[in-house]
Protein backbone atom coordinates (compact mmCIF):
# COMPACT_ATOMS: atom_id res chain seq x y z
CA UNK A 1 0.00 0.00 0.00
CA UNK A 2 2.91 2.41 0.60
CA UNK A 3 3.40 2.14 -3.16
CA UNK A 4 0.60 4.72 -3.54
CA UNK A 5 2.30 7.38 -1.40
CA UNK A 6 5.61 6.76 -3.15
CA UNK A 7 3.91 7.14 -6.55
CA UNK A 8 2.32 10.40 -5.37
CA UNK A 9 5.71 11.82 -4.33
CA UNK A 10 7.22 10.57 -7.59
CA UNK A 11 4.53 12.41 -9.55
CA UNK A 12 5.49 15.72 -7.86
CA UNK A 13 9.19 15.18 -8.69
CA UNK A 14 8.51 14.27 -12.35
CA UNK A 15 6.27 17.29 -12.89
CA UNK A 16 8.75 19.66 -11.21
CA UNK A 17 11.80 18.39 -13.14
CA UNK A 18 9.85 18.40 -16.44
CA UNK A 19 8.82 21.99 -15.87
CA UNK A 20 12.39 23.05 -14.96
CA UNK A 21 13.71 21.40 -18.15
CA UNK A 22 10.86 22.52 -20.36
CA UNK A 23 9.80 18.97 -21.27
CA UNK A 24 6.31 18.68 -22.77
CA UNK A 25 6.00 14.89 -22.87
CA UNK A 26 7.66 12.21 -20.74
CA UNK A 27 8.20 8.88 -22.47
CA UNK A 28 10.11 6.90 -19.84
CA UNK A 29 10.74 6.99 -16.10
CA UNK A 30 13.71 5.06 -14.68
CA UNK A 31 13.68 4.03 -11.01
CA UNK A 32 15.83 2.02 -8.63
CA UNK A 33 14.34 0.14 -5.68
CA UNK A 34 16.43 -1.64 -3.10
CA UNK A 35 15.33 -5.17 -2.25
CA UNK A 36 14.79 -4.17 1.39
CA UNK A 37 12.42 -1.33 0.46
CA UNK A 38 9.62 -3.91 0.16
CA UNK A 39 8.03 -2.38 -2.91
CA UNK A 40 5.91 -4.74 -4.97
CA UNK A 41 6.63 -3.86 -8.64
CA UNK A 42 3.18 -4.90 -9.92
CA UNK A 43 1.41 -2.79 -7.32
CA UNK A 44 3.78 0.11 -7.91
CA UNK A 45 3.07 -0.03 -11.65
CA UNK A 46 -0.66 0.34 -11.00
CA UNK A 47 -0.04 3.23 -8.58
CA UNK A 48 2.27 4.88 -11.13
CA UNK A 49 -0.29 4.57 -13.92
CA UNK A 50 -3.00 6.04 -11.70
CA UNK A 51 -0.79 8.97 -10.68
CA UNK A 52 0.14 9.67 -14.31
CA UNK A 53 -3.43 10.05 -15.56
CA UNK A 54 -4.08 13.42 -17.28
CA UNK A 55 -0.42 14.47 -16.84
CA UNK A 56 2.48 14.82 -19.28
CA UNK A 57 3.78 11.38 -18.25
CA UNK A 58 0.56 9.47 -18.92
CA UNK A 59 1.51 6.34 -20.91
CA UNK A 60 5.24 6.67 -20.10
CA UNK A 61 7.28 3.46 -19.84
CA UNK A 62 8.31 2.58 -16.30
CA UNK A 63 11.63 0.87 -15.66
CA UNK A 64 12.16 -0.49 -12.14
CA UNK A 65 15.64 -1.78 -11.42
CA UNK A 66 15.76 -3.88 -8.22
CA UNK A 67 19.05 -3.59 -6.32
CA UNK A 68 20.22 -6.47 -4.13
CA UNK A 69 21.26 -5.88 -0.52
CA UNK A 70 24.96 -5.03 -0.25
CA UNK A 71 26.79 -4.80 3.07
CA UNK A 72 30.11 -3.38 4.14
CA UNK A 73 32.05 -4.57 7.16
CA UNK A 74 33.20 -1.62 9.29
CA UNK A 75 36.07 -3.71 10.67
CA UNK A 76 37.75 -5.32 7.64
CA UNK A 77 35.97 -3.19 4.94
CA UNK A 78 34.86 -6.32 3.08
CA UNK A 79 31.86 -5.64 0.79
CA UNK A 80 29.42 -8.43 0.03
CA UNK A 81 25.89 -9.14 -1.19
CA UNK A 82 23.29 -11.05 0.82
CA UNK A 83 19.78 -12.34 0.27
CA UNK A 84 17.04 -10.16 1.77
CA UNK A 85 16.88 -12.18 4.99
CA UNK A 86 20.46 -13.45 4.97
CA UNK A 87 23.03 -13.01 7.73
CA UNK A 88 24.11 -9.46 8.59
CA UNK A 89 27.52 -10.58 9.81
CA UNK A 90 30.73 -10.14 7.83
CA UNK A 91 31.31 -13.11 5.55
CA UNK A 92 35.05 -12.50 5.90
CA UNK A 93 35.80 -11.68 9.57
CA UNK A 94 32.36 -12.45 11.14
CA UNK A 95 32.07 -8.99 12.71
CA UNK A 96 28.57 -7.71 13.51
CA UNK A 97 29.64 -4.15 12.82
CA UNK A 98 27.98 -3.90 9.42
CA UNK A 99 26.68 -1.05 7.31
CA UNK A 100 23.99 -1.48 4.64
CA UNK A 101 25.45 0.30 1.61
CA UNK A 102 22.82 -0.79 -0.89
CA UNK A 103 19.31 -2.26 -0.72
CA UNK A 104 17.12 0.44 0.84
CA UNK A 105 16.93 2.74 -2.21
CA UNK A 106 13.71 4.33 -3.41
CA UNK A 107 15.29 6.42 -6.17
CA UNK A 108 14.32 8.20 -9.33
CA UNK A 109 17.30 7.75 -11.65
CA UNK A 110 16.18 9.71 -14.68
CA UNK A 111 13.29 10.70 -16.92
CA UNK A 112 13.22 10.65 -20.70
CA UNK A 113 11.13 12.92 -22.87
CA UNK A 114 11.03 15.82 -25.28
Amino acid at each position, binding site marked *: *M*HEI*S*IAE*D*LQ*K*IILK*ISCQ*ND*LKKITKVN*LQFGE*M*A*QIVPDIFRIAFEESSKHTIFEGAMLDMEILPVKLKCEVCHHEFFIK*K*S*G*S*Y*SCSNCHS*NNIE*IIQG*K*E*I*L*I*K*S*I*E*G*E
Partner: protein
Amino acid sequence: MEIKIMKNILDRNQNKANEVREMLKEKRVLMVNLISAPGSGKTSLLEYTIEALNNNVKIGVIEGDVTTDLDAQRLKKYNIPIVVINTEGGCHLDSHSISKVLPEFDLEKLDVLFIENVGNLICPSGFDLGESFKVAMTSTTEGDDKPVKYPLLFREAGAVILNKIDLMKYTNFNYNHFLKDLRQINPLIPLFPLSCLTNEGMDKWLEWISDKILAMS
Protein backbone atom coordinates in the same frame (compact mmCIF):
# COMPACT_ATOMS: atom_id res chain seq x y z
CA MET B 1 16.41 13.58 -24.13
CA GLU B 2 17.26 11.99 -20.79
CA ILE B 3 17.44 14.05 -17.60
CA LYS B 4 19.56 12.43 -14.88
CA ILE B 5 18.05 12.95 -11.42
CA MET B 6 19.30 10.32 -8.89
CA LYS B 7 17.06 11.53 -6.08
CA ASN B 8 15.36 9.77 -3.18
CA ILE B 9 11.64 9.79 -4.06
CA LEU B 10 10.86 10.09 -0.35
CA ASP B 11 13.08 13.20 0.07
CA ARG B 12 10.04 15.26 1.03
CA ASN B 13 9.30 12.88 3.91
CA GLN B 14 12.98 12.59 4.87
CA ASN B 15 13.56 16.35 4.99
CA LYS B 16 10.56 16.88 7.25
CA ALA B 17 11.64 13.94 9.45
CA ASN B 18 15.09 15.53 9.85
CA GLU B 19 13.43 18.81 10.87
CA VAL B 20 11.24 17.03 13.44
CA ARG B 21 14.20 15.11 14.87
CA GLU B 22 16.27 18.27 15.24
CA MET B 23 13.42 20.11 16.95
CA LEU B 24 12.73 17.29 19.42
CA LYS B 25 16.43 17.05 20.21
CA GLU B 26 16.47 20.75 21.06
CA LYS B 27 13.46 20.27 23.34
CA ARG B 28 15.03 17.08 24.81
CA VAL B 29 11.99 14.96 24.02
CA LEU B 30 12.52 11.27 23.20
CA MET B 31 10.19 10.10 20.42
CA VAL B 32 9.54 6.36 20.10
CA ASN B 33 7.91 4.97 16.95
CA LEU B 34 6.11 1.76 17.93
CA ILE B 35 5.50 -0.55 14.96
CA SER B 36 3.72 -3.91 14.84
CA ALA B 37 1.00 -5.84 13.06
CA PRO B 38 -2.57 -5.21 14.27
CA GLY B 39 -3.27 -7.01 17.55
CA SER B 40 0.33 -7.54 18.73
CA GLY B 41 -0.33 -5.46 21.83
CA LYS B 42 0.95 -1.93 21.12
CA THR B 43 -1.83 -0.25 23.11
CA SER B 44 -1.50 -2.77 25.95
CA LEU B 45 2.25 -2.07 26.11
CA LEU B 46 1.55 1.66 26.25
CA GLU B 47 -1.06 1.15 29.00
CA TYR B 48 1.43 -0.73 31.15
CA THR B 49 4.34 1.61 30.38
CA ILE B 50 2.33 4.78 31.09
CA GLU B 51 0.92 3.34 34.31
CA ALA B 52 4.41 2.41 35.51
CA LEU B 53 6.19 5.65 34.53
CA ASN B 54 3.48 8.30 34.73
CA ASN B 55 4.47 9.55 38.20
CA ASN B 56 8.07 10.27 37.27
CA VAL B 57 8.03 10.96 33.53
CA LYS B 58 5.94 13.34 31.42
CA ILE B 59 4.45 11.27 28.62
CA GLY B 60 2.55 12.16 25.43
CA VAL B 61 1.07 9.82 22.83
CA ILE B 62 0.30 10.11 19.12
CA GLU B 63 -2.20 7.43 18.18
CA GLY B 64 -2.08 6.55 14.48
CA ASP B 65 -5.06 4.58 13.27
CA VAL B 66 -6.79 4.01 9.97
CA THR B 67 -10.05 5.05 11.57
CA THR B 68 -11.64 5.42 15.07
CA ASP B 69 -10.11 6.68 18.33
CA LEU B 70 -10.60 3.40 20.21
CA ASP B 71 -6.92 3.08 21.20
CA ALA B 72 -6.81 6.67 22.43
CA GLN B 73 -9.96 6.04 24.49
CA ARG B 74 -8.11 3.24 26.31
CA LEU B 75 -5.34 5.67 27.31
CA LYS B 76 -7.64 8.53 28.37
CA LYS B 77 -7.69 7.36 31.99
CA TYR B 78 -4.04 8.34 32.43
CA ASN B 79 -4.81 12.00 31.88
CA ILE B 80 -1.86 12.57 29.53
CA PRO B 81 -1.81 14.54 26.25
CA ILE B 82 -2.96 12.29 23.38
CA VAL B 83 -3.47 13.24 19.73
CA VAL B 84 -5.17 10.91 17.26
CA ILE B 85 -4.17 10.82 13.60
CA ASN B 86 -6.70 8.99 11.45
CA THR B 87 -5.07 8.09 8.14
CA GLU B 88 -8.47 7.33 6.52
CA GLY B 89 -7.24 4.26 4.71
CA GLY B 90 -3.53 5.15 4.66
CA CYS B 91 -1.31 2.28 5.80
CA HIS B 92 1.36 4.33 7.62
CA LEU B 93 2.07 7.67 9.26
CA ASP B 94 4.49 10.08 7.58
CA SER B 95 6.68 12.85 8.93
CA HIS B 96 4.34 15.59 7.66
CA SER B 97 1.41 14.19 9.65
CA ILE B 98 3.60 14.11 12.79
CA SER B 99 4.90 17.63 12.20
CA LYS B 100 1.32 18.90 11.85
CA VAL B 101 0.22 17.56 15.26
CA LEU B 102 3.36 18.41 17.28
CA PRO B 103 2.11 21.97 18.05
CA GLU B 104 -0.77 20.36 19.95
CA PHE B 105 1.74 19.19 22.60
CA ASP B 106 3.56 21.43 25.05
CA LEU B 107 6.99 19.99 24.24
CA GLU B 108 8.63 21.95 27.07
CA LYS B 109 6.60 19.79 29.44
CA LEU B 110 7.24 16.39 27.81
CA ASP B 111 10.00 13.85 28.38
CA VAL B 112 8.81 11.20 25.95
CA LEU B 113 6.39 11.00 23.06
CA PHE B 114 5.19 7.54 22.03
CA ILE B 115 3.85 7.11 18.51
CA GLU B 116 1.58 4.11 18.05
CA ASN B 117 1.90 3.64 14.30
CA VAL B 118 -0.81 2.09 12.11
CA GLY B 119 -0.88 -1.69 12.62
CA ASN B 120 1.28 -2.92 9.74
CA LEU B 121 4.77 -4.44 9.53
CA ILE B 122 5.71 -3.25 6.05
CA CYS B 123 4.73 0.31 5.18
CA PRO B 124 5.56 2.11 8.47
CA SER B 125 9.15 0.79 8.36
CA GLY B 126 9.92 2.80 5.22
CA PHE B 127 8.81 6.20 6.54
CA ASP B 128 11.08 8.07 8.92
CA LEU B 129 8.92 10.15 11.29
CA GLY B 130 11.82 11.94 12.96
CA GLU B 131 11.74 9.48 15.85
CA SER B 132 14.67 8.82 18.18
CA PHE B 133 14.27 5.14 17.33
CA LYS B 134 11.71 2.58 16.21
CA VAL B 135 10.55 -0.27 18.43
CA ALA B 136 9.48 -3.38 16.54
CA MET B 137 6.83 -5.43 18.29
CA THR B 138 5.58 -8.90 17.47
CA SER B 139 3.86 -11.63 19.45
CA THR B 140 4.05 -15.39 19.81
CA THR B 141 0.59 -15.90 18.28
CA GLU B 142 1.79 -14.36 14.98
CA GLY B 143 4.43 -17.04 14.43
CA ASP B 144 8.22 -17.07 14.75
CA ASP B 145 9.00 -16.03 11.16
CA LYS B 146 8.48 -12.26 11.41
CA PRO B 147 12.17 -11.17 11.42
CA VAL B 148 12.84 -13.18 8.25
CA LYS B 149 9.72 -11.90 6.52
CA TYR B 150 10.18 -8.24 7.48
CA PRO B 151 13.97 -7.73 7.72
CA LEU B 152 13.87 -3.96 7.15
CA LEU B 153 11.93 -3.29 10.36
CA PHE B 154 13.94 -5.72 12.49
CA ARG B 155 17.20 -4.35 11.09
CA GLU B 156 16.28 -0.66 11.55
CA ALA B 157 14.60 -0.86 14.97
CA GLY B 158 16.32 0.17 18.20
CA ALA B 159 14.65 -2.64 20.17
CA VAL B 160 12.36 -5.63 19.65
CA ILE B 161 9.47 -6.61 21.89
CA LEU B 162 8.11 -10.15 21.77
CA ASN B 163 4.68 -10.04 23.43
CA LYS B 164 2.34 -12.81 24.62
CA ILE B 165 5.08 -15.11 25.92
CA ASP B 166 2.44 -16.48 28.35
CA LEU B 167 0.65 -17.95 25.31
CA MET B 168 3.76 -19.50 23.75
CA LYS B 169 2.97 -22.97 25.12
CA TYR B 170 -0.38 -22.96 23.27
CA THR B 171 1.21 -22.13 19.89
CA ASN B 172 3.84 -23.63 17.60
CA PHE B 173 6.09 -20.59 18.11
CA ASN B 174 9.70 -21.75 18.27
CA TYR B 175 11.67 -19.26 20.39
CA ASN B 176 15.04 -20.60 19.24
CA HIS B 177 14.10 -20.17 15.57
CA PHE B 178 12.89 -16.65 16.28
CA LEU B 179 16.06 -15.73 18.16
CA LYS B 180 18.35 -17.26 15.54
CA ASP B 181 16.61 -15.38 12.71
CA LEU B 182 16.56 -12.12 14.64
CA ARG B 183 20.25 -12.38 15.55
CA GLN B 184 21.10 -13.13 11.91
CA ILE B 185 19.45 -9.88 10.81
CA ASN B 186 20.38 -7.74 13.80
CA PRO B 187 22.94 -9.43 16.07
CA LEU B 188 23.05 -6.71 18.72
CA ILE B 189 19.45 -5.48 19.02
CA PRO B 190 17.95 -5.55 22.55
CA LEU B 191 15.09 -8.08 22.77
CA PHE B 192 12.35 -7.96 25.41
CA PRO B 193 10.23 -11.11 25.63
CA LEU B 194 7.25 -10.15 27.80
CA SER B 195 3.55 -10.50 28.44
CA CYS B 196 1.31 -7.44 28.65
CA LEU B 197 -1.28 -9.69 30.32
CA THR B 198 0.77 -11.27 33.12
CA ASN B 199 3.45 -8.51 33.19
CA GLU B 200 6.23 -11.11 33.00
CA GLY B 201 9.38 -9.53 31.54
CA MET B 202 7.99 -5.98 31.78
CA ASP B 203 10.58 -4.84 34.33
CA LYS B 204 13.45 -5.19 31.84
CA TRP B 205 11.57 -3.18 29.18
CA LEU B 206 10.72 -0.45 31.71
CA GLU B 207 14.31 -0.26 32.86
CA TRP B 208 15.57 0.03 29.27
CA ILE B 209 13.07 2.68 28.15
CA SER B 210 13.56 4.66 31.38
CA ASP B 211 17.30 4.78 30.71
CA LYS B 212 16.64 6.05 27.18
CA ILE B 213 14.30 8.76 28.46
CA LEU B 214 16.83 9.78 31.09
CA ALA B 215 19.66 9.92 28.56
CA MET B 216 17.64 12.36 26.42
CA SER B 217 16.54 14.69 29.24
